[in-house]
């Protein structure tokens, strides 16, 4: 395979449906039902604690930034606020979108709506996009959330560390959504019954941005935009850094998350911002396990998974050369060794993909 076509309306997606690669049954490590039930158990405590810390820090840092504005002394506080706004919102959007962060549904939904606004994603559209990402993870032409397409475009990857491409794409889509509902591509994965919701959400987001811009013009200052909107640019780097590691340089068009997802052990601050999504193989294999139980799930199934990268730096040292190599050979990917205790990869399921691995 080469010359991938990532369009959701293109030939690769149609071929995935024809061959049964789409909506396939994926490999799962066997976990006793009793253990899995305990791991899947929901509680409000950890997410309430983390949400109080997150929003508390955001108010504190933004407050100090506003107080010290426009002095350069305000810069560190904006940088800290930006990471919480432009990166922690990604993981909150993700976990609350799954409905696993809190036990209480309205809490999941409230944090999901706020996080969707901050990360500039339509709360109605992206719920469905992410469902498809879990059904068809890195299946070309089916998964709308493939962060690194082949061949990789490094300039785009680097620009997105500052959220530039995401934001440039977001606003035209926002306006289109607000006027006419989902785009043509979005209509391939958002059910028709949800289209009015997509439009309403876009109208609310658009109104908030217009009000913020109007306030900035009235004040003759970008300060309101430093609080709302711009942090999605100057604070995006952390979620892009961790997000690239999720699947970058690994296989596509396979049905075993051990081949296309990466677990990376991280420092405590990054794990707080990322809400434990560094346990990414585990999350994809068992999306019902809440973020706070992922370290325990990792301990439970690590005998069946490739060894995790031991740090973000190690993950990048492994991923980056693989991405560079995909510039010359689109089919190349990293195939990580499994421990002796693991069930082997099903080579017969993945003949096309595994043929290109090293």
């Amino acid at each position: 395979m080469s010359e991938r076509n990532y369009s959701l309306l293109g030939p690769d997606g149609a071929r995935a449906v024809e061959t049964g690669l789409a909506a396939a049954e994926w490999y799962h490590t066997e976990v006793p039902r009793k253990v899995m039930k305990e791991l899947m158990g929901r509680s409000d405590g950890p997410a309430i604690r983390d949400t109080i810390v997150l929003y508390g820090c955001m108010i504190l840092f933004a407050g100090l930034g506003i107080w010290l504005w426009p002095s350069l002394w305000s810069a560190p506080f904006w940088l800290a606020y930006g990471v919480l706004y432009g990166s922690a919102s990604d993981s909150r959007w993700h976990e609350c979108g799954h409905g696993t962060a809190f036990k209480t549904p309205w809490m999941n939904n409230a944090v999901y709506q706020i996080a969707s606004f901050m990360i500039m994603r339509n709360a109605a559209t992206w719920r469905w996009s992410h469902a498809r990402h879990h059904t068809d993870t890195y299946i070309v032409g089916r998964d709308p959330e493939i962060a690194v397409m082949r061949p990789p475009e490094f300039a785009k990857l680097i620009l997105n560390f500052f959220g530039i491409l995401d934001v440039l794409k977001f606003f035209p889509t926002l306006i289109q959504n607000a006027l006419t509902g989902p785009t043509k591509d979005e209509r391939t994965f958002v059910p028709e019954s949800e289209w009015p919701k997509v439009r309403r959400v876009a109208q609310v987001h658009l109104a908030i941005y217009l009000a913020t811009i109007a306030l900035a013009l009235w004040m003759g200052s970008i300060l309101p935009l430093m609080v709302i909107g711009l942090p999605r640019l100057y604070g995006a780097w952390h979620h892009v850094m961790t997000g690239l590691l999720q699947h970058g340089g690994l296989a596509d068009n396979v049905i075993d998350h051990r081949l296309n997802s990466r677990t990376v052990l991280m420092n405590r601050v990054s794990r707080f911002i990322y809400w434990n999504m560094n346990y990414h193989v585990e999350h994809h294999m068992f999306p019902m396990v809440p973020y706070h139980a992922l370290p325990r799930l990792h301990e439970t199934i690590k005998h069946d998974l490739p060894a995790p990268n031991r740090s973000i730096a190690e993950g990048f040292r492994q991923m980056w050369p693989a991405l560079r190599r995909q510039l010359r050979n689109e089919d190349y990917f990293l195939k990580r060794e499994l421990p002796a205790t693991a069930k082997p990869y099903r080579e017969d399921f993945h003949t096309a993909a595994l043929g290109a691995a090293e």
Partner: protein
Amino acid sequence: MTQWIDACATADVDEEDLIRFDHAGRTYAIYHSPEGEFFATAGKCTHEEVHLCDGLVMGHLIECPKHNGQFDYRTGEAMRAPVCVNLKTYPVRVEGGRVMLQVE
């Protein structure tokens, strides 16, 4: 035409849990509610044909293991996206420690 079939023993399903039951080429899910009652639904999620037996029962909700969609297993009502289509339910009765399921 409907018929009652023997699905499982009451002790086979833990309280606030479910099991999978296959019969005549179809798959079902049998639930044991926190109040001790038994219920039955179609065995696969209406969203993407995933077996519900690996999901999580929370009170009267069953959450799909793939996309976290939720149904009320007593009525089959779709309660949380991405599920939009209700789940088919089946009458259940308990006789002598056995869970009986009425199927078509």
